[in-house]
């Protein structure tokens, strides 16, 4: 444990520049959106306190906005506002809106009627009543709303890294993808501390007496503005093209680090989620992205792969990895899973992914159609001899594979099947397997080598480009270390690849990563 703590500290001090940047961005994002939420929510709350008839519908609408899943909301924003700060701020603002509107409304409605009557009877006009009586008296309740909104925003702002808006989410999601606990904690701990500190400060403010509150309220907007300005501090260097890389890619030797050290690529880079990256490239928000070679969106968005002419991306052959204890428990399992071995090539996998991602067919249908076309499909026996638990990571390809395995097991054996799909990134899935929460899931040889085993860099370099050596090495090591067996690869190689829009690639004459580097160097 102490070793772990120390290395977390080391990680944080090594990455202190990035950490500081991300923290500034995080605070900035939180407060810019809060500022706008107050600017919109406060007047709206006042309005519905005056016109009670519309209060129900306004509050209901803000409530509905609040229930939209944050990732989905960020996704909706991209076609409207692109990627980066704008959509993130708007999304955060939407989440912050409800508590502010509701508390402003509740606060004003809660002002004692006799006090309002006295104000009116003394000859105050509506504005004077609002600013001198209603708002000051409602202020503790309004501040409570702002406090809730702030804490919500600190949390949701971690997701902003999905659409290239930065913040502490870069570390958190990068860490989850890379199986790097220190990286996760380096993002999660500051985010939590930020939430606690801001909550505490606002609680203090909320409990001030009227006299002090008046003074503080004058300072508050200035304070908000300054904190909002934090977002503008860290500015990345510019280049003629913009790249969008996933948090995972950013931290990998066979990713951004390799691009820098092997190719010497210098490109303006923003961190973005896999879920929106392809679309952003299609919409010309990004020029170069780090995709997967079998991704269906490659086909859908008419992107082309830049040739990895210096071979920094190792092969990623997919194969089911199974607990050895499970193979003993379910003797027929290995044979059934190997039915799929060598059956799916790169182009077939891209096509299957295209069907789910772009044609919106269910993974179940895609899996069934494929099995039928290969004469592998058998009707489920509805067996009851023990439950095989299948896991999958949270992306389409894995869902399809999980469905295929489910049908094969049900059709060929008497086992029952439980699927636990969508287990986040590599780390979550692998931990579930090691801890006997699932029996197997499809993994990739490259991931097994570079993410899960993490051998010395020298050694990794030697074997990473050889498909067979890699497979043998991971299989041996996994059996020794984790009692987990790699079955025969399915056939396709889902490796990392840099991609551009086909049209742009042609226009610029950029077909390989070396071309890209030269183009960037010539067009500074």
């Amino acid at each position, binding site marked *: 444990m102490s070793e772990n703590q120390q290395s977390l500290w080391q990680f944080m001090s090594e990455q202190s520049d990035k950490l500081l940047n991300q923290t500034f961005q995080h605070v900035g994002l939180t407060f810019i959106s809060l500022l706008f939420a107050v600017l919109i929510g406060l007047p709206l709350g006042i309005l519905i306190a005056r016109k009670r008839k519309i209060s129900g519908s306004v509050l209901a609408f803000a409530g509905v906005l609040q229930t939209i899943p944050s990732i989905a909301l960020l996704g909706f924003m991209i076609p409207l506002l692109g990627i980066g700060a704008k959509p993130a701020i708007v999304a955060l603002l939407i989440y912050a809106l409800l508590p502010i509107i509701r508390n402003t409304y509740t606060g004003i409605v809660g002002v*004692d009627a*006799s*006090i309002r*009557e*006295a*104000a*009116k*009877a*003394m*000859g*105050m*006009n509506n504005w*004077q009543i609002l600013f*001198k*009586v209603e708002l*000051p*008296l409602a202020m503790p309740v309004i501040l409570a709303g702002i406090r809730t909104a702030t804490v919500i925003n600190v949390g949701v702002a971690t997701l902003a890294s999905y659409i290239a808006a930065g913040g502490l989410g870069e570390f958190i999601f990068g860490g989850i993808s890379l199986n790097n606990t220190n990286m996760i904690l380096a993002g999660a701990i500051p985010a939590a501390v930020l939430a606690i500190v801001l909550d505490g400060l606002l609680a203090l403010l909320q409990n001030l007496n*009227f006299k002090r509150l008046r003074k503080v309220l004058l300072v508050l907007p200035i304070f908000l503005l300054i904190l909002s300005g934090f977002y503008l501090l860290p500015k990345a260097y510019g280049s003629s093209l913009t790249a969008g890389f996933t948090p995972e890619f950013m931290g990998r030797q066979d990713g951004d680090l390799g691009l820098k050290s092997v190719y010497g690529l210098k490109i303006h880079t923003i961190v973005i989620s896999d879920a929106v990256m392809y679309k952003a490239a299609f919409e010309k928000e990004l020029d170069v992205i780090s995709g997967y070679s079998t991704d269906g969106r490659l086909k859908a968005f008419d992107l082309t792969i830049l040739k990895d002419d210096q071979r920094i991306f190792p092969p990623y052959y997919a194969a089911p990895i199974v607990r050895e204890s499970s193979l003993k428990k379910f003797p027929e399992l290995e044979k059934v899973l190997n039915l799929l071995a060598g059956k799916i090539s790169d182009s077939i996998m891209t096509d299957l992914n295209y069907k789910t991602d772009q044609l919106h067919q269910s993974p179940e249908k895609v899996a069934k159609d494929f099995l039928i076309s290969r004469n592998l499909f058998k009707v489920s026996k509805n067996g009851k001899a023990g439950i095989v638990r299948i896991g999958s990571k949270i992306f389409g390809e894995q869902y399809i594979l999980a469905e295929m395995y489910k049908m094969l097991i049900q059709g060929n054996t008497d086992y029952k099947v439980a699927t636990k799909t969508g287990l986040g990134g590599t780390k979550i899935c692998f931990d579930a397997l090691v801890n006997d929460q699932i029996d197997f899931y499809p993994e990739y040889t490259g991931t097994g080598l570079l993410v899960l085993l993490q051998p010395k860099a020298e050694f990794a370099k030697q074997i990473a480009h050889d498909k067979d050596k890699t497979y043998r090495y991971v299989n041996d090591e996994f059996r020794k270390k984790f009692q987990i067996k790699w079955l025969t690869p399915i056939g396709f190689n889902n490796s990392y690849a840099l991609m551009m829009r086909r049209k742009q690639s042609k226009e610029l004459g950029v077909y390989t990563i070396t071309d890209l580097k030269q183009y960037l160097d010539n067009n500074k």
Partner: protein
Amino acid sequence: MIKVEAVSKSYGNTLAVKQVSFEVSEGENLILLGTSGCGKTTTLKMINRLITPDAGNILVNGKDIAKEKPEVLRRGIGYVLQNTGLFPHYTVAENIAIVPKLLGWEKEKIKSRSNEIIEKLHLSEKYLSAYPGELSGGQQQRVGLARALVTDPSVLLMDEPFGALDNVTRTSIRKEFKGLEELKRKTMVMVTHDIHEAFELADRICLMNKGEIVQIGTPKDLLYKPVTDFAKNFLASEKLSLEFKIISMDDIWDLIPSSEPVSATSLSSSVSVWDVMDKLQSAPSLVVKNPSGEQKNIAFSAITEAFKRYQKKQSHE
């Protein structure tokens, strides 16, 4: 001067105030008396346009209030509420300064006038920097009164001003209220459901029922010349104690036998029968002096005899 002419107000299908008319002359205190829901508060609030009448006219100091800007009208009329309506986030000084500030008074003037009014209302200056929440109910009510009086408006409206106070505080503050120099010249309309309060403070009482005026008149008119059974029954249970309070020694002076004063100290004959009887609890007799200087020695038997004869005389008129 306030003039209310055929004013009506309804809420939905309920007629809250029906064709009410009355006049309050300068310096007079008219009390609107009645059970809850009789329309007295609605009537009061129409005078400073907190409520807009459906029909009829109201004139304050000769001007039609419908033609004035409501804010301007209200700044010129003092208003005291049952629950004080003090701003909890303002100090006592700031509460008192609300209307002067709205009228654009200078700081110095506000300060000197605030000090003056607070002294007249027997509040210590140290309370000026306190918040209303730190004061007792009686003190809060005084601040409410100070706030209404600070600009010395000629018209004062009061909605159950003592309603939220306990009985003891209420009696003492009422007595004080009666003696306030500051209120002597004011044209006042006050709402209450407390019969004793009305009879103690009113120049004239306007008895209301179901949105209509039953009777307007002096306390004595109401007691001895009720115009309807409602008016009679309304006061029936309290009649005797009210009589003791409103009949003064002047009223029964002629009915008391003359006698030589036995004591040097004397009471004014403007005091009520109630007060004299109260004092006779601790002394066998008292000397009372009427405005023309005549003095009479009064014992319990004499005063009760005179009171009875006065009552009989009134009921025969």
